[in-house]
């Protein structure tokens, strides 16, 4: 049985008959190509939101946090709601990359890169809120245990808020190196495929000089595994500690022993919802439908279903315990009859409907695999999880122990603007990422191509499990291209792989003429009487020498080149000896079409 065997009942994770090269081309395409119009529109909107938020933050810091809607009773509101919401969203990435790596889930490879990016960007947003809330953010370094001018008055290591500082900074930095280490081979692929010198330079720096030696790969895999082992308890600890901010207090509704597991499940729930929201758009915009398939969406929906179930059980438990204590005070906590019918009834029901009811539709396979519905559900869950944090914080605080101080919370434009600003900032970062980073970890994906690719699965189905998985490549020689300068290459061996070409009974010139005729039949013959020749050197990849050779064959116009298909490229390579570059890679036909239309 082949070492690439995978149970045929498993659906393919990579669609289409892909070779390793196809994977490189398709994942490199969004980076090496140009941004389209819709990218610029979304980017501009996000940037405006971000700048608006920045304005609100500057206003807050220069005036004081009195510009928020906080009052004497409700001293924490949107700021901490947003903080917990963003931290929660930042849990899916590490869950996908770490926990699913430990469980050897192959489907993670298509989504882990973007999920990790989303994690880092979400944690950056989360980190903003405690810093703004300090009022004097330039003193933020006071949270660090460093000697100071107050006779070394140290930070309080008994406080969950300080645990947060350590947990979130560890989480952010570990996620960052995990992400970056995984990116090195992919940056190297982009570096080696880039043709523009500036681009090559940038990716050369980003890739840290990754070369893909066998020993490096061995270490790489070990490091990924150990980081996954470290990040798994880390990701659980982060939201556990965030929940301690509430659970170690004495406010009813907050002082709850089920908070840590319930918060972690809720974080994964909301994180996966955000991953779905982003990836459903991204796979469409970047044409990655073959890599992020309906199967991936289905798997993520199953995780949403499980974590959503845990969250629902926690809600029911909280509601039950509030009622079971028989204490009238508990009737005002965020999951109680009082909350459901009180002034915050709308927030209570938003929570129940968005987080408990709507996700139940995902029990049905048809809905789990419906992309539009998944997108709608993911947005609803994002809203629901924001309400969960809002309910915990605001409803629990709104009715405190002194009846006379019961009040409601009214957000100001600054509260709203800051929140919108972080959403804008998040999308700005994610959009920049999608344009400049390899959004799928193509190196590891190539490793599962033979076991889980559709083409290879079909190969096994048709020819049995012992069929050779060796991929047949027939590519033009790129010539001696190397990252090492001053290195001499001697191609002193004249072994031929293609016996037909050296067959002496067929005159090679006759074969060549036959191929030229075939090529011109495909792309059309140039007629000097009615057509004028175009400047072929404007096509990226065509130099003066190559242009001359094309003219010799009889190719003079963009129209001719724009008709070329892969078959014609191959013919061209056979006709022109020592063909430099790769027309497929440079997409001559596409370029020629654009130039033709520009005329």
């Amino acid at each position, binding site marked *: 049985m082949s070492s690439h065997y995978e149970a045929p009942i498993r659906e393919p994770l990579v669609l289409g008959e892909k070779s390793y090269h196809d994977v490189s081309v398709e994942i490199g395409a969004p980076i090496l190509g140009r941004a389209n119009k819709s990218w610029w529109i979304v980017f501009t909107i996000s940037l405006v939101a971000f700048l608006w938020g920045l304005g609100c933050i500057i206003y807050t810091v220069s005036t004081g946090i009195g510009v928020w809607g906080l009052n004497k009773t409700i001293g924490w509101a949107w700021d901490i709601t947003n903080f917990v919401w963003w931290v929660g969203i930042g849990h899916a990435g590490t869950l996908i990359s770490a926990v699913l790596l430990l469980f050897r889930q192959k489907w993670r490879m298509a989504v882990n890169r973007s999920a990790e990016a989303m994690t880092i960007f979400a944690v950056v947003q989360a980190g903003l809120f405690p810093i703004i809330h300090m009022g004097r953010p330039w003193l933020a370094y006071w949270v660090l245990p460093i000697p100071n001018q107050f006779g070394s008055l140290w930070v309080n290591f008994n406080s969950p808020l300080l*645990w947060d500082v350590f947990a979130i900074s560890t989480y952010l930095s570990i996620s960052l190196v995990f992400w970056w280490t995984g990116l090195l081979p992919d940056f190297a692929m982009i570096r080696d495929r880039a043709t523009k010198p500036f681009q090559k330079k940038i990716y050369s720096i980003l890739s840290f000089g990754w070369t893909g030696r066998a020993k490096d790969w061995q270490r790489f895999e070990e490091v990924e595994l150990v980081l996954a082992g470290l990040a798994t308890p880390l990701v659980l600890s982060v939201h556990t500690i965030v929940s301690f901010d509430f659970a170690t207090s004495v406010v009813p509704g907050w002082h709850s022993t089920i908070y840590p597991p319930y918060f972690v499940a809720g974080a994964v729930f909301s994180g996966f919802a955000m991953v779905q929201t982003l990836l459903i758009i991204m796979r469409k915009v970047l044409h990655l439908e073959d890599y992020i398939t309906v199967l991936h969406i289905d798997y993520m929906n199953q995780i949403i279903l499980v974590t959503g179930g845990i969250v629902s059980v926690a809600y029911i438990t909280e509601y039950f315990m509030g009622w079971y204590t028989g204490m009238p005070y508990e009737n005002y906590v965020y999951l109680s009859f009082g909350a459901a019918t009180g002034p915050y009834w709308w927030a209570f029901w938003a929570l129940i409907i968005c987080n408990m009811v709507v996700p139940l539709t995902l029990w049905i396979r048809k809905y789990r695999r419906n992309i539009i519905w998944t997108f709608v559900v993911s947005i609803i869950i994002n809203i629901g999880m924001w309400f969960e944090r809002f309910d915990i914080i605001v409803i629990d605080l709104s009715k405190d122990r002194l009846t006379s101080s019961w009040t409601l919370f009214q957000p100001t434009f600054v509260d709203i603007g800051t929140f919108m600003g972080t959403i804008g900032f998040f999308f700005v970062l994610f959009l920049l990422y999608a344009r400049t980073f390899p959004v799928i970890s193509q190196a590891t994906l190539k490793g599962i191509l033979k076991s889980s690719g559709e083409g290879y699965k079909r190969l096994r189905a048709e020819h049995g499990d012992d069929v050779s998985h060796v991929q047949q490549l027939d590519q033009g020689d790129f010539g001696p291209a190397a990252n090492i300068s001053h290195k001499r*290459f001697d191609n002193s061996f004249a072994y031929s792989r293609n016996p037909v070409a050296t067959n002496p009974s067929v005159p090679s010139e006759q074969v060549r003429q036959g191929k030229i005729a075939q090529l011109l039949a495909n792309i059309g013959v140039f007629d000097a009487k009615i057509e004028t020749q175009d400047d072929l050197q404007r096509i990226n990849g065509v130099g003066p020498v190559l242009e001359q050779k094309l003219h010799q064959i009889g190719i003079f116009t963009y129209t001719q080149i724009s008709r070329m298909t892969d078959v014609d490229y191959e013919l061209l390579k056979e006709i022109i000896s020592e063909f430099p570059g790769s027309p497929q890679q440079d997409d001559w036909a596409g370029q020629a079409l654009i130039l033709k239309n520009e005329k």
Partner: protein
Amino acid sequence: MAANKIHAIYTDDDLLLQAVKQVRAEEYQISEVYTPFPVHGLDEAMGLAPTRLAITSFLYGLVGLAVAVWMMNYMMIVDWPQNIGGKPSFSFHQNMPAFIPIMFEMTVFFAGHLMVITFYMRSRLWPFKQAENPDLRTTDDHFLMEVDVENHDIDKLAEFLYNTGASEISLVKTEEAH
């Protein structure tokens, strides 16, 4: 002595793995293999020793734990003991439960970061480091095996490598050591 090498390029991972085994069976010396993705079983086939990065990570974790214990003991117990909410901090073991979260975080912080730094240093990876893969296609879909020529017959070696399935072979003459 000029250390000449032969670069044999393969277009498939299965082919490469098979070739590595054949080349080693013939007792030729493989000095390096460049692959675009981790090929499972390649390190074993090449006879590479297992990496010890996981062990270093464990040791770094212990360092992190020790630093956390020392830091919190010094700051909270020795240097400036306080009475926080009626819970005086005069002895380490009574305060220890509250220190566990940070002990854990510091352990993970040290174990993760120092291991990655060790990896980068050992594999010579850092910004502005020039890549050294001899063929640009080895990060895309080609696999390059570097075989030491030593004092073998070059033609025989090349012929042998072609028979293992190499699609391109080139002789690389390294300059005299200077």
